[in-house]
């Protein structure tokens, strides 16, 4: 449990004048920024420089987070676990000394997965250990059975990659050449690894120097007091944020297909118990750990839950240990997202961690969606899936070539109450996303892109549309061929679920078209995702094809998930639907099927035909029943589930959906729907189905649930209103 981990002794928060406090606080933040800049400059890996898959931070001597950079959020929650593991292993022996730096990538000791290598450095001043500086970056290859250390065929952690359990890479200020050599001999890309390590070491050195300057100027106790004060300030703000939210249980569930060996389906169940100023994340009900590499350890679980929590509950609070203090995680050992050694975990970041992030976003969005002051932060899931593509072989000049293509960040963003999802949004765990130019990738390696563009109808339909996703196709160029490896998920699971009645974004897909055609003819034929999807000879590779060869004339293509929609699509302004069609994000066929909007020859909505079509869709939702109420005017705050002053859920039309401490789904109209009714890119694993919950009176869509066929629907919002409190006042508008 997070709450119980921060326990070692530390100086008390002493009185310090607010001016000096703010001056020092800003300097700590500036140091963290400088750490990030330093790492980025030295590193040569596109994963660090373009995709910013790294993070840096400053920590108290006990490992508590003081500052973190705005890069991949997974890491920072976990670097503190790395530091605590080092403290546990080395501290007890008195083996943490000035001038040391430790390297660790063992997922059972704090790393999210093996490629995420952390280098952490204790900061000493006048002989006293005062703080830690840390850097963590995703490495292109840390050895093991597969290139990129994505060990999709592994059955245990020993096969996957080198395991650095916490080694003194630098001892007393000197790089240990023996360790360095050992590490470099285990990777396929020693040049990249060497540069990234140098970058992390340089970043830590910068942080140490700057911290010491601060200690000299203001005195170490003052600086420590500011660090602790910052943590306490964030804790106070976070607790007061939690007090604004009614007590209750908020649940979410998501699935992942294929464990590397077989196309089995796994699920992650999350129940967020909110009581007073505390949050408990409970993972009870999650599938047992998989025999393949899709699991994650405690560390990944924690990083993923935080990734959902920070932007939704604490966007305006500085992210540090204080935000973690009111949070407890309960997870049985041996489940998919708290795997027991020696389960394989090299795919954690793109598999179990991703799913945990999705359920964290969904459950917390359901939670803040109940609070008028916070409901703008509630979001449908952003690109709930990841596809990893590595390419390896020989470059044009005969040198070894290997890359991890990160274009798959360009999925669709989740929609929210007052805006559409972003078309091309980046992944949720990356606050400042970026992908490389096509020209940069073509210059770097022997590949040629055929297209990289938005794919229509990939954004989940909704009153606010989910963001459109992109797709791309490429082929080996100037060389005989390349070894590709693809691992992903979300090709048969719509992970980007909608919120408040919005539909899920389209699924991902991985395609291969074998041919012996010339490049010019392939350029003519395949210039958008549609041209490949409609090709009769294209192979659907499924979620995790693993390694395969792409030779001359072969085209590989992949599409990513679109964002989830927000609200009933039938409530979307027909003018906005017409604009989406004009811009090409939605086709006119799906405008009619999903939004019930019929366009005339000029592309403007035909209001009469639209009204007829929408009524038809509403009636079908009620399974032949009659509508007893008119759909509410498209006004108000736009939430599907509202709360009446007498403590009941109700639809916008006024229909009663039961007490807030009962499952509202019992009162809703329910039917199972085929995926094709939810968009052309929705596909389902054989064990899954889609259930639609609508208002029994007006047929407004309240939720579209992705669910295992043999499972009960999820009771997703259960409020525990305190009889004496103001909860009702808070949550009714």
């Amino acid at each position, binding site marked *: 449990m997070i709450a119980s981990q921060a326990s070692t002794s530390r100086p008390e928060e002493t009185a310090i004048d607010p001016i000096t406090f703010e001056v020092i606080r800003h300097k700590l933040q500036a140091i963290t920024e400088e750490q990030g800049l330093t790492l980025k400059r030295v590193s040569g890996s596109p994963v660090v420089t373009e995709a910013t898959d790294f993070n840096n931070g400053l920590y108290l001597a006990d490992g508590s987070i003081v500052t973190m950079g*705005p890069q991949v959020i997974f890491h920072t929650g976990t670097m503190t676990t790395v530091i605590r593991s080092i403290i546990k292993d080395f501290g007890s022996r008195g083996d943490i000394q000035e001038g040391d730096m430790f390297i660790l990538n063992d997922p059972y000791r704090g790393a999210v997965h093996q490629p995420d290598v952390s280098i952490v450095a204790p900061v000493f001043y006048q002989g006293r250990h005062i703080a830690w500086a840390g850097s963590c970056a995703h490495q292109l290859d840390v050895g093991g059975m597969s290139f990129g250390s994505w060990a999709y065929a592994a059955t245990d952690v020993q096969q996957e990659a080198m395991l650095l359990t916490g080694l003194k890479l630098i001892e007393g200020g000197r790089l240990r050449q023996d360790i360095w050599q050992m590490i470099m001999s285990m990777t396929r890309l020693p040049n990249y690894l060497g540069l990234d390590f140098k970058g992390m070491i340089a970043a830590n050195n910068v942080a140490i120097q700057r911290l010491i300057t601060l200690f000299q100027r203001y005195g170490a106790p003052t600086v420590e007091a500011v660090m602790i004060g910052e943590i306490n300030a964030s804790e106070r703000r976070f607790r007061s944020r939690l007090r604004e939210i009614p007590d209750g249980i908020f649940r979410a569930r998501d699935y992942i297909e294929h464990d590397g060996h077989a196309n089995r389906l796994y699920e992650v169940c999350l129940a967020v118990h909110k009581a007073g100023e505390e949050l408990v994340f409970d993972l009870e009900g999650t599938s047992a750990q998989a025999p393949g590499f899709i699991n994650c350890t405690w560390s990944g679980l924690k990083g993923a839950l935080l990734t959902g929590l920070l932007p939704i509950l604490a966007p305006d609070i500085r992210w540090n240990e204080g935000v973690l203090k009111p949070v407890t995680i309960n997870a049985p050992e041996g489940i998919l997202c708290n795997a027991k050694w020696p389960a394989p975990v090299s795919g954690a970041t793109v598999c179990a961690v991703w799913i945990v992030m999705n359920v964290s976003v969904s459950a917390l969005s359901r939670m803040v969606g109940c609070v008028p002051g916070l409901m703008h932060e509630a979001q449908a899931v952003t690109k709930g899936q990841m596809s990893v593509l590595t390419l390896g072989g020989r470059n044009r000049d005969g040198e070894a070539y290997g890359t991890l293509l990160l274009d798959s960040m360009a999925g669709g963003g989740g929609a*929210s109450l007052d805006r559409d999802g972003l078309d091309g949004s980046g992944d949720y765990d990356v606050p400042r996303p970026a992908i490389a130019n096509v020209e940069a990738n073509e210059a770097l390696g022997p590949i040629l892109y055929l297209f*990289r563009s938005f794919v229509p109808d990939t954004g989940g339909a909704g009153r606010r549309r989910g963001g459109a996703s992109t797709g791309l196709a490429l082929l080996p160029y100037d060389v005989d061929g390349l070894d590709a490896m693809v691992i992903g998920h979300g090709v048969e699971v719509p992970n980007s679920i909608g919120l408040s009645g919005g539909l899920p974004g389209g699924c991902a897909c991985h395609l291969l078209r074998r041919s012996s055609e010339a490049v010019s003819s392939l350029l003519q034929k395949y210039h958008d995702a549609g041209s490949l999807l409609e090709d009769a000879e294209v192979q659907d590779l499924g979620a995790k094809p693993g390694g395969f060869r792409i030779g001359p004339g072969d085209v590989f293509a992949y599409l990513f998930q679109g964002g989830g929609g927000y609200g009933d699509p039938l409530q979307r302004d027909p003018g906005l639907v017409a604009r989406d069609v004009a811009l090409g994000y939605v086709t006119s066929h799906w405008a009619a099927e999903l939004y019930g909007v019929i366009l005339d020859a000029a592309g403007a909505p035909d209001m009469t035909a639209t009204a007829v079509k929408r009524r038809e869709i509403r009636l079908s939702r009620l399974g032949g029943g009659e509508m007893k109420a008119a759909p509410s005017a498209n006004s108000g705050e736009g939430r599907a589930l509202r709360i009446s002053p007498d403590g009941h859920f109700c639809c916008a039309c006024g229909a009663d959906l039961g007490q807030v401490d009962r499952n509202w789904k019992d009162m809703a109209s329910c039917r199972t729907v085929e995926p094709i009714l939810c968009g052309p890119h929705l596909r389902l694993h054989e064990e899954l189905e889609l259930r639609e919950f609508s208002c029994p009176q007006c047929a407004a869509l309240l939720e579209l649930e992705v669910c295992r066929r043999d499972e009960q629907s999820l009771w997703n919002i259960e409020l525990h209103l305190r009889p004496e409190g103001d909860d009702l006042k808070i949550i009714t508008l």
Partner: protein
Amino acid sequence: MEGDGPIYLGVDIGGTFTDLIMIPRNGRMKAVKTLTTPGDLETGVLSAVRLMAETIGIAPRDLLQRVEIFGHGTTQATNALIERKGTRTGLITTRGFGDTIGLQRLLGLTVGLSADQLGWYSKRRYPEPIVPRTFRREVPERVDHAGRVLLALDEGAARKAVAELAAAGVKAFAVALLWSFRNPAHERRIGEIIRETCPDAYVTLSSEISPIIGEYERTAATVLNSYLAPSVAGYLGRVEGVLRESGFRGKFYILNSVGGVMPAREAARKPVLLLASGPAGGVLGSLQLAKFLGYRNVITTDMGGTSFDVSLIVDGKVLISSSHEAGGYHLNTPMIDIRAVGAGGGSIARVENGLLRIGPESAGAKPGPVCYGLGGLLPTVTDANVVLGIISSDNFLGGRMKLDRKAAEEAIRREIAEPLGLCVEEAAAGIVRVVDAHMADILRGITIGRGYDPRDFVIFAYGGAGPAHCTGFGSELGARRIVIPATSMVHSAYGALASDIHESRERSLLMRGGGGRNELWEGIDAVCVAEVFAELDRHCLAAIEDAGIAARDTMLVRTIDMRYRRQTHDLTVVLPPGPVGQDTIRAAVAQFETDYEAAYGRGAGFREAGIELTIFRSQATGRPRKPELSGSGAKTAGRPGSRNVFDPIARRWVPMSVWQWLDLPAGHRLAGPAIIEHPETTVYVGAGHIAVLHPAGHLSIDLAGGDPAGGA
């Protein structure tokens, strides 16, 4: 008093004021400010000229007839972009890549968010598109990384695309194809088709405006150029027309964002190069001043009401960056590297959870600080200065504006002092100390972050709020000397007047050297490099000659961007002058290694990986002959006034001398703590600092108590 020799004018049009500066042959600078006339800016320019003529007692026509060079810094391009008031533009791309400009490499959705706001996902938005999807067309064609044609241009499709866009009301075209900078044939052909079909439409080709690798940034530069060109050309034509009608016969130069001025005709063709023309003026003015005063390394700081703009002059050159953001888009055209931070006199102070926070919210010009009495209720940095007595409530802007000190005190008491349990002056001093410390952090970031030691730099401070804070942030930074230019209140206009003609041409080309045990320069074809530069030089020199500058007044600098292979960060290395040969290459490579270690630490580079040369650039600077500034000529210092000021560092009230800048004689030294007032600004000289007036009217402040009159 100005004699009858030639006159040089510089004008900068800001949001509120139009600044005009004049330097006659004797170097005695004069400046006037008039209100900017939105929607009809040329009228404001003309009235500034009239006011100047009146000030020196001659007829406007006589003044204009004597003007040799009229330099103009304009925010016209920037404003048209921000307000999305450009021309309807159509974009033609390689088929399959029309969404490049919409995807923006995903960079667009975090534009304008500060580091603090990056985690606030509900604030993410893509910028309003310049070219919506409906105005984009894709044509079948493809060129590879080596410039080889893989798919010939489908001319029929190109014609159809052009016709459709024209029918949709497009008046300007942008053509940006993949790898066009390696082989521009397809772009050129599409350009011809557009000119045949729509002879009146404006066309920009990406291979011409920005022949650099990276299709998103190149496309953005191309699109923005077409989007802005018609309105910028129209505007520049109107200004020049008004001036010519009124007697002006000299040269009309426009300040660009790259490093100098360019003839108006050229500027109208490349408005994308004007996007930072406003702040660039101050930096280029500083560059001229630095040369004159003999400083090689300068941090320029422009602190106004809402923003703090910082840039560096290193070894006598402004730093140029080839990646920056404008109007929500990212460009790879070279531009002076200016970092703008939301911090200024209008930044709002508040207490959050018992802690003092300042900015990034700003009260701006309206309602402005509380003391302006224009309705502002939240205390700002300027209010703190007024409460401390640093800014006089009676003599602000030379007494033209009375400030309400009581209201400022009240706001700071209510919002800051009481919540923090401090007295009002302690709270105000706290605001000043925090702001100064933050600015010092920013300056440290931009110097140390680039491998420079801030103590090796002189700080130039200008902008309305800069002189009150510069000794504060300068001391905090550990700087030794600050210069407040005589032109500090019209520094951008001065930059427009004083800057050299600047032309640059670049080309993206990949060359490799070294690798394994070879020397890094081995394998680089010197003949090929020489050919590339010969071509670039020729274009630059021709343009300078067109601008009417003699070859002997022109200086040429060649640079190559280099990096270690597998590292993504380039360093720009200056080639030794003279013909390009094997020796030049070796010297440049050696320089790269030295610079790299300086920037990133010993052993940071991976030598064994070899080296890559990526961007070749020639920059020609033509020096029009202009007089140097000289001082106003006061003979003896008057007696200073005095008032009580709360010293924010010592945290007590101290009686301080109050001097009038314009009454100080050259060479006058005074010791802080002291206030120096100027009709447009207030200088605060801290305890232990010594200020000296330079003969040309600049104020030098030595923070270490040394001799600020000494050389660089």
